């Protein structure tokens, strides 16, 4: 299914930035990435994305449906993907929990899809403030069964324009659901953004889609495999695919790590706040750097292992009560000393707060070294 891409949605002068919310920019990036079907159900703090798609998809003659529930939306995505569409849905934490069954089916059926989670404070209904507490749900599959989704964790509105086409590309390339893990702040805040480098991902041959079997042998997509041997084989096939993702799709950014004696690990909005803190620490000659996972799964474990040869102090910062730290512990596997600061519940720590805490831990660590 090919889509013509129009740039008329935003004021389309090349090289000119526009002030846009993360939600709206994500919508435009999806449109430019050839998203042909969007299904969504309203929930704060991602409503502007659904709103944007309602307008733009209709303008372009593409499919927009406000579904009756999050569960319906993810299953519409499944249906559209079965038919070969580039399909997307979005929600926030409570809605993401509802979508997990559908994501498990997408993974089992090896169907491409892009699913956006603008995370808010939880558990339960929680609140509508930005949070990072869906990390484990997103990076461990989230639904039932042995499966993985690629998880992209952008940290700015501009970065969304890189991550969204990448998400559609990876989804098609691996025939797998891809999750964009944002948070309420990324969705709500406005920043200057341009779409100059957004190109629709290439079209992959889709020899599996169900388009009517006229003139060709019929196809079947299903996840019900009563034969245990067949199910086990299917699982191992999926595992081999996940291993290929782990080999090829790890993405991360380093910041001031060359001479670092302490490395902060943070992602998304958390990494932004950490960057502000690290800049202050550097002014006082504290050698602190950062590794920012862009793919929360596959996690940049090998990079941390490499740093652990020379660096002993690692500091995990997250807007949750201790989820990212599990991946850091697994990656370091007992090497190095891990410090932690996390705030759950929709609290947004300030760069100054983090600067003080990292600074204190840094001094504690250097005293320990000396003694």
């Amino acid at each position, binding site marked *: 299914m090919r889509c013509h891409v129009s740039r008329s949605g935003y004021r389309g002068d090349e090289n000119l930035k526009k002030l846009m919310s993360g939600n709206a920019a994500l919508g435009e990036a999806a449109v430019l990435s050839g998203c042909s079907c969007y299904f969504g159900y309203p929930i704060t703090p991602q409503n502007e994305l659904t709103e944007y798609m309602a307008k733009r998809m209709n303008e372009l003659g593409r499919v927009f449906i406000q579904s009756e529930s999050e569960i319906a939306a993810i299953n519409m995505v499944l249906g559209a993907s079965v038919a070969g569409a580039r399909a997307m849905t979005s929600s926030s934490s409570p809605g993401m929990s509802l979508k997990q069954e559908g994501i498990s089916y997408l993974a089992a059926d090896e169907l491409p899809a892009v699913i956006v989670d603008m995370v808010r404070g939880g558990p339960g209904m929680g609140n509508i403030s930005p949070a990072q507490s869906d990390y484990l749900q997103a990076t461990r599959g989230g639904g039932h069964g042995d499966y993985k989704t690629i998880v992209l964790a952008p940290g700015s509105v501009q970065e969304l324009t890189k991550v969204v086409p990448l998400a559609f590309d990876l989804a098609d390339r691996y025939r797998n659901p891809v999750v964009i893990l944002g948070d309420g702040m990324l969705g*709500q805040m*406005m920043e200057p953004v341009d779409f100059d480098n957004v190109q629709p991902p290439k079209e992959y041959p889709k020899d599996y889609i169900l388009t009517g079997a006229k003139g060709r042998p019929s196809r079947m997509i299903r996840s019900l495999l009563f034969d245990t041997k067949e199910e086990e084989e299917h699982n191992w096939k999926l595992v081999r695919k996940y291993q290929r993702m782990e080999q090829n799709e790890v993405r991360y950014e380093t910041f001031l790590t060359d001479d670092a004696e302490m490395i902060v690990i943070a992602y998304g909005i958390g990494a932004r*706040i950490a960057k502000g803190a690290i800049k202050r620490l550097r002014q006082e000659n504290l050698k602190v750097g950062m590794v920012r996972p862009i793919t929360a799964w596959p996690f940049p474990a090998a990079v941390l292992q490499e740093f652990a040869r020379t660096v002993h102090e690692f500091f995990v910062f997250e807007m949750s009560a201790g989820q990212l730290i599990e991946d850091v512990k697994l990656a370091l596997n007992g090497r190095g000393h891990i410090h932690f600061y996390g705030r759950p519940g929709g609290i947004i720590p300030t760069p100054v707060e983090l600067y003080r805490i990292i600074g204190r831990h840094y001094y504690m660590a250097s005293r320990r070294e000396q003694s």
Partner: protein
Amino acid sequence: MMTRTIFSGFGGQGVLSMGFTLANAAMLEGKYVTYLPSYGVEVRGGTANCTVVVSDEEIASPVASEPEFVVAMNQPSFNRFQNILSAGGLICVNASLVNTDVARSDIEVLSIPTTELAERLGTTKVANMIMLGALIKASGIISFDDMIKNLGELLGEGKAKLIKLNKEALEVGFNYVKE
């Protein structure tokens, strides 16, 4: 240099558009900028606020826990946000609606009778632009001249007939504040 400003007031006073206009103007000047609206559980007629961070460098957080500037268009906003202003910070107050007797002693208060000034221009709808002009004069966050130059773009398509009125309002506010 980085400045953090919170705009606050009743929903309908043009509080969000004040912040959005400043953020947009700063962007056109080539600065780093973030704009974060409050998206909490609000009621019609209740309070609205937004935070604008303008910087020469990448911005770590769009949240301002200790802003340098606050604009308070109504009393509840004044009472709430004067408390989080940095010591030595400036609060621009809509004098037409706000009593500043309870102001903290370690901050500066700039009172602008926006409603009265706006009425002289024929409509109270531009009270927010008068306030924005005053803030820019008192804070120097962005260049006022550049902003006036870019006003057509800032107001967006289809608002050409409003350029003159908004320009006047911005100038009234800007000139009201003495050096």
